[in-house]
């Protein structure tokens, strides 16, 4: 009798297998490549849905506890799956024209496979391995479109990423050392403050690089802002979710005593303030959609850090609110992925500006507006609930932090609203988007609205391992 959680594993390996088969098929067979990729992401979607269903009864362990999925990680995996579907929908046959073809259709399933392991990793070495899978796939992904900007961005990404990976490897060593040779999470507390004071910042420097936490974010604007939006959609909307899950999980595991957890929380809170403010201020004066999305990605990570600080602080003391913080991060990540994946794809088409989009493509303009408003946190869209729950949990930790986050949220209204107004403006030379991108935007908007309406029920169904 095959258990449900075992099925998940088979399906994830099936995703990987499909991804590996793609390059074997001759270059001309674009249809087959696409079909296989679609099959892979749908299989992965089913896998993560089954996983989420299974975790409602409790955490699911694989490989003797090296890989543990709970509601939080399963939700994040599902979000990655949905974002991947939307990215694939948006890119349509375009990737077939790239010199790297059929790499896109092969690497997308590979990234998903890596995200599955990274989100669920319960061991430092597993995290390192999955990190490498996702990272290398991401570097290549950025280079796929083959144009000058993309290749340049990819080179930067690789050089910087290598440094960050070194930090992660250093952390793995420290972590294993602290736990007397055990690389699994949370067997021993970070009791030794001097080692913890080394391990935690090392990990944050590594993860902060991937997530775009200020001041480790330097690469991000030149990659997100300059590379092909359709490739960025995958890196920012899919791959990033795995890192978010890893951040939350490791920090939760490290926050075992009030003494350590309050220190971690303080570091995260400080980074949250800097990150939010940096992202929002930098985004204020640009009218380029892709740049807005780039800097708003930094700001959004800042909000998530607010919840992460609360999570670290509340983990030993108040598990109920810690759960709320986790659920909030999951919901926010989902809304983030729903918005970013199609918007980045669309941004590639809208390099010339947004002005007048509503005249030619009202559906695209409306959908994009909804997605931007969700990023802003407008009720009743999904983004509102993510922010609401994150800030609610954070109130238990620090009111000033929440107030700063709210002010930041208010500031962000400026550039989101301006972008929406741009779309409604009258313009002689009206931009258009392709049907595939319009469809991707529409699905993102619909999901954002529908999930927003049922968000409180999603929260009620949330059960993490802790």
């Amino acid at each position, binding site marked *: 009798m095959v258990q449900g959680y075992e099925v998940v594993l088979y399906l994830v390996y099936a995703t990987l297998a499909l991804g590996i088969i793609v390059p074997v098929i001759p270059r001309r067979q674009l249809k087959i490549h696409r079909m296989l990729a679609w099959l892979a992401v749908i299989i992965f979607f089913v896998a993560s849905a089954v996983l989420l269903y299974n975790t409602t009864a409790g955490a699911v362990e694989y490989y003797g506890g090296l890989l543990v999925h709970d509601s939080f990680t399963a939700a994040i995996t599902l979000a990655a799956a949905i974002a991947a579907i939307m990215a694939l929908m948006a890119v349509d046959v375009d990737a077939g024209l790239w010199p790297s073809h059929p790499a896109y259709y092969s690497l997308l399933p590979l990234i998903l496979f890596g995200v599955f392991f990274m989100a669920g990793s319960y061991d430092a070495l597993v995290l390192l391995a999955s990190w490498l899978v996702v990272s290398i796939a991401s570097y290549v992904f950025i280079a796929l479109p083959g144009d000058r900007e993309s290749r340049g961005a990819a080179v*930067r990404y690789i*050089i910087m990423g290598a440094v960050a990976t070194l930090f992660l490897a250093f952390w793995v060593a420290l972590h294993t050392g602290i736990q007397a040779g055990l690389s699994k999470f949370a067997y021993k507390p970070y009791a030794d403050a*001097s080692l913890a004071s080394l391990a935690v*910042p090392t990990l944050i420097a590594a993860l902060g690089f991937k997530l775009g936490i200020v001041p480790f974010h330097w690469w991000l604007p030149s990659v997100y802002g300059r590379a092909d939006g359709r490739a960025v959609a995958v890196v920012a909307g899919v791959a990033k979710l795995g890192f978010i899950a890893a951040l939350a999980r490791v920090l939760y595991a490290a926050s075992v005593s009030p003494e350590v957890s309050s220190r971690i929380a303080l570091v995260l809170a400080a980074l949250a303030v800097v990150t939010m403010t940096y992202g929002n*201020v*930098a985004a*204020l004066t640009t009218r380029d959609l892709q740049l807005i999305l780039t800097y708003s990605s930094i700001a959004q990570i800042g909000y998530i850090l607010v919840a992460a600080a609360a999570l670290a602080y509340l983990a030993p003391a108040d598990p109920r609110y810690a759960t709320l913080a986790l659920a909030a991060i999951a919901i926010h990540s989902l809304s983030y992925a729903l918005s970013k994946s199609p918007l980045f794809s669309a941004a590639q088409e809208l390099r010339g500006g947004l002005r007048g989009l509503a005249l030619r493509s009202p559906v695209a303009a409306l959908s994009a507006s909804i997605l931007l408003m969700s990023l802003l946190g407008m009720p009743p869209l999904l983004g509102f609930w993510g922010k609401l729950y994150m800030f609610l949990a954070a109130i238990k930790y620090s009111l000033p932090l929440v107030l700063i986050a709210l002010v930041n949220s208010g500031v962000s209204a400026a550039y989101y609203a301006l972008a929406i107004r741009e779309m409604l403006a009258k313009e002689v030379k009206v931009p258009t988007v392709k049907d595939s991108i319009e469809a991707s935007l529409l699905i993102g908007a619909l999901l954002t609205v529908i999930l927003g309406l049922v968000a409180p029920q999603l929260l009620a169904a949330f059960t993490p391992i802790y």
Partner: protein
Amino acid sequence: MVEPIYATLAWLTPYIGALILGFMYLAGIREEKAYGIVSSASLFLAAVLSTVVGLDVLSSGRPIYDVHKWIPWINVDVATYIDGLSAIMIIVVSWLSFFIGVYSVEYMKGDWGYPRYFFVFTFFVGSMLLLVSADNLLLLFIGWEGTGLASYALIGHWYTDEEEYWVGVPGRRALGYPMYFEPSHSGLRAILFTRVGDIGFLLGMAILYALAGTLSLREIASVAGDWTAELAVRGTLLLTLILISLGALAKSAQFPFHEWLVTAMTGPTPVSALIHAATMVKAGIYFILRFAPIVFTGVLASASEAAIHAAQEYFTIIAGLGAVTAFMLATMALVSNEFKLILAFSTASQIGYMFLAAGAAGALIEEADKIAFASGIMAGLSHLVSHAVFKAALFLIAGWAIHAAHSRFIDYMGNYAKYMKVTAIAMWLAGLSLAGIPPLSGFFSKELTLKAAEEAGLSWVFGLGVITALLTAAYTTRLILRVFHLPPYEKSHHEHEPHEAPALMLVPYTILAFAALIIGLSWTKVSEAFSRASELTLALLAPAKLEIHVTTELMTIVAGVLASIVAVAYAYKVARVDFKSLIARSTIARGIHDFLFDRWYINSIYYATIVYGFAVLSLILAAVDTAIDWFYHAGLVGLAGVGSVALRRLHRGRPEYYTTLYLFMASLALLLITLIWR
């Protein structure tokens, strides 16, 4: 016994009259006569009702109380309460209003604001009657503000501000501030000056309500022992009493609030007669007469040493302010060159006597002599009544004199006794009553107020009162001689001869002037009525002694007053002293003259400190506001814009530079965290 509802109807009638006038205007009726008739009829009806009610109270010895439910949750009703004090007030107010209303019918003939004038005038009478017959402070305050509103509207009646309606010599400045005032400006001054006092009044009311739990005067009086004791324990009794009295001081134009009354003379003369001489300015002293007995008996009932001490101080302050006002304004009247302005100074000065009497009466609180207290209070009331009568007459005469001269300056008037015999007689009667010559009413009432000050042992107050009496005689004589018996100082531009006033104007002021004589002649009867009224007055309840005994002091004062009159008459009529050239020649004389003429420079000081002080404050606040605006709309936005661009500039796409930054930041974070976590 009359129906209690009459008491309510007495003040309601003018209100209804005003309402009808308003509808008439809206209906498009522009016939002057109609307005005059409706207004006069409603005033007459109110006068008759007031007389019926007032006389009933005085003869039956039972106060009338008429109550209609109004605001249950703060325990305030539309309640009219007529006791001895109110009975006298409503009779005096309503008849004066009627006479002056009739005078106005003629005086305002052809005025472009005729309907408006009568609407506001009638509304004023309703408010004034409500004020003096209200049972609770809220209703009283509504009447109070109604009179203030009407006063504002009537002072600014000629709001187009032609020069002939100004007060003061056009172009004259004191300390750099203009000393001439347009009607619209004067109206604003009046409402702003009284506003200062009214804020205090409101605060005081709130304190009383918080402590006594009621706004009804009768209930406040019945628990006065409790709240005075409580305030005395907290050490705030004196402050509270002064706060409540601020409204009264401002309304009655007592120092330091007297400035508004002076410039209120921009209104039509009947308005000056009714509102700014006979009635509204008396509202303040009415309130003191109403409130002082409550304080007096309350403090005695509390039997608290601190309360008695505070009350003594309060009453002394009231008496002192009254005396200072009486003296200060009398000196101003000496040199003024406008008919109405002289009368205005005189009004504030005479009301000073009333405050003096009420304060002096209360200052006897340590002796707990209720009869002496009642006598002092009733002395204030008797001077209120006699002043209302003769001052109304003087103002109405002023109206005609100004009309005849086509100028408000007395220098353009002269020898009127030749052309208008009856008016001259009326002027002498009213003027001598003001000067305090027996047997006119002013003599008795003024002597009573001085007697109260003397008995209270407030010698400096008494002294100021006596000096003021001499000054009063002097400026009155100067005024009468200048206008009626000396040739005009300046040549008038209008050559036709003056003549006697038309009947509708002549009759009212003649009646009033003779009333001053009749009241004086029948003082025994009148003082009996006042004595009875004092027994019927809320919280007073003691018979006042209002007889005048012939003493050395009395003889001295009368002799002094007569000497003052004779001296002025000699200087003007026989010696023919030319004061104008005297002032022009002598620096000292000019200095004194200017000091008095420019009202002790108090107006200029107010403008320099308060008006321009606030103007400067407003400029500063405007600058702060602009700065805040700039900060939000330009500063912050600009900063964000510059910051935004600067932050994006950091990303130039150079990997080696990024790597360095990344490593530097990571090391910095590591260092910081390691340092902090230790």
